[in-house]
């Protein structure tokens, strides 16, 4: 057990100040938290759904939760049920086999709700596009409020995208 405590002590805190292109972190963080406080009672709950990604986008979404980015400090957290969510974060093209699941997940989120398409696939159809098996981008199936481009978007880009949407 002491080994573990020792390792924790030596590792310390690695969480980083968050780099924004055009605004100092603290200010922007504070502004966002104000938005979240005003519209989402202090916390923004995200339900993610993969409707046909290659799983690259999920890896970066996981990374956004690691101790370097620590997305929760901005009041943003991932929830298990769409009924607890304010925002639906979608990755991948919408495979036809996931079309109904996406619509039902969307319907299960209480209004008002936001939808963000993460990555080039979800945003524009990416490498897979429309075919017998795929509906293409998310906006072909449900209304989308914002697109975060990239293949995959890095955790930084993901956070910037979310924070920007909140500022709007």
């Amino acid at each position, binding site marked *: 057990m002491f*080994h*573990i405590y020792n*390792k*924790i002590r030596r*590792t310390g805190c*690695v969480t980083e100040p968050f780099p924004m292109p055009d605004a100092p972190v603290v200010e922007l963080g504070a502004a966002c938290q104000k938005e979240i406080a005003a519209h989402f009672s202090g916390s923004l709950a995200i339900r*993610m*759904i*993969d*409707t*046909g*990604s*290659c*799983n*690259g*986008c*999920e*890896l*970066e*979404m*996981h*990374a956004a*939760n*690691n*101790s*370097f980015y620590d997305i929760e400090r901005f009041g943003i957290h*991932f929830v*298990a*049920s769409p009924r607890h969510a304010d925002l639906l974060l979608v990755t*991948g*093209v919408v*495979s*036809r*086999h*996931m*079309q*109904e*699941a996406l*619509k039902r*997940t969307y319907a299960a989120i209480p209004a008002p709700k936001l939808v963000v398409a993460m990555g080039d696939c979800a945003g524009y159809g*990416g*490498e*897979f*596009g*429309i*075919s*017998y*098996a*795929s*509906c293409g981008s998310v906006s072909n199936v449900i209304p989308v409020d914002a697109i975060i481009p990239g*293949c*995959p978007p*890095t955790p930084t880009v993901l956070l910037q995208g979310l924070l920007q949407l909140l500022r709007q």
Partner: protein
Amino acid sequence: MITQQQPTQGKVSSFADQLTAVGIRIQEDKPLPGMTAQLKLRSKDWGFAAKVAAQNKLRWSAVWGDHRPPKIIIRALLFGVDGHLLLQTEVTEGSPELPSQAEFFIVASRPERYLQDMFGVRFQEKKDNRRWIRHQAWLETDFPLRQTFPVAGNPVENTKPDNNYPFPAVDGEGVYQIPVGPVHAGIIEPGHFRFQAMGENILRLEERLGYVHKGIEKIAVGRDLDGLIRLAGRVSGDSTVTHSWAACQAIERALEINLPPRALSLRAILSERERIANHLGDIGAICNDVGFSFAQYQMSRLRELWQRQNQLIFGHRLLMDLFVPGGVSVDLSKDDILNLQLEIEQLRPEVEELLPLLLECPSLQDRLRDYAFLTTADAQRLGAVGYVGRASNLQDDLRRDAPYAPYDQLDVKVPAFSEGDLIKRMRVRGEEILISLDLLSKLLKQLPEGSLSVDYSLPGREVEGVGLVEGWRGETLAYLRLDDQGKVLRYFPRDPSWLTWQALEMMLDGVIVPDFPVCNKSVNGSYSGHDL
């Protein structure tokens, strides 16, 4: 740790004689580059040949189809101690009947159902001929990988959910079903799990996949080589290097291109980096699934540092799009090499410190040890690959057992255990990180000078090739057929998840429902790589 035994015992080079001895008529072909042998059979002998292969302890690896009207060519890949064997037969599109191989290799069952859905091949005397990859996006009478089927298909506005797929139910007092998915609770890909449970105990799990089928094989057709490699890099994002390499290798074998040694070493560097990144992340995630967040914090920290280095030196955190047919598109400067070497020296002591910590921690051991066994017999019956196989002493590792350049110049150690429990699947991955670090430092130290890629000319005739590489999940295949202009006629990627997803169903004896996520994580099959 066991390092001696080698459970795949059969030899593919004697398979032809074994078939002839039991009266099966065969035609031996000149093997495609990379294959040890290649045999053609009459379709009626397809099942019996599998029986002979199973008796002679070959490992079944893949089956795929290729529609060349009016025929459908079927190929299966077998593995022995002396390499790979390609078995070929054909059926007509009018009466595509074929004996099943699944009776002798249980793992063949789902790939055969896939052939049935995609090509309309009907397997005779097969117990399970339910649909597999097809849900409701196309009709039972349509077969997307037949040439006459348009890539756009005939979709309806709203594809219905596939909610009457027949799951066999377990009978008995107190037995109930738990449907889970396709949308799961965490940040994870979609799939459906149907549990038959009694109290907390799982009596039976059946997987139902295919939710992220996006038509990769169909949309590959007609692409040029660069477009194909971009697509291959997205078959499964966590294995982008692996699938890109397999596809490139298939192209290069088909076009008879020899790569410059520097390109080969750089590919291996990328591949080992991908292995380490995934192992780091998954060890943390396995521990996190039993609530041990210390390991998650530490491992995700190491993984993040590793990915940042990827970004800094290779320009992409997951190493996407760094392969080109004939080579690679990144180079390492002297400084880069020094940085990478420094990074290895930083990571190694961290991993060497953390792994024993995890293995000695009683509360973690209590959850992971002696639990969720995949017995060696089951692993062998299944032909499990990668860390799932190795934890159950099924050791096959192409880098050692069927080495391709540059691994033919390296001594690759393969860690293996015989217990096959959850902690061993994790331990194999820990050991593999250290082994990969050794390989990386050798590769960096001996990085040959020279060019990054070679020019090549288009075939001028139809050609085909098979690529086989050992990804972090295990043996990964790419089959390619190209036309005279180098355009894709057929692309088939086989992710190792096809062989390990079924292992998950077999390791749940005595496991309770709340522990399913950690068992799933210890296998970590790719949904995307499987669903295509």
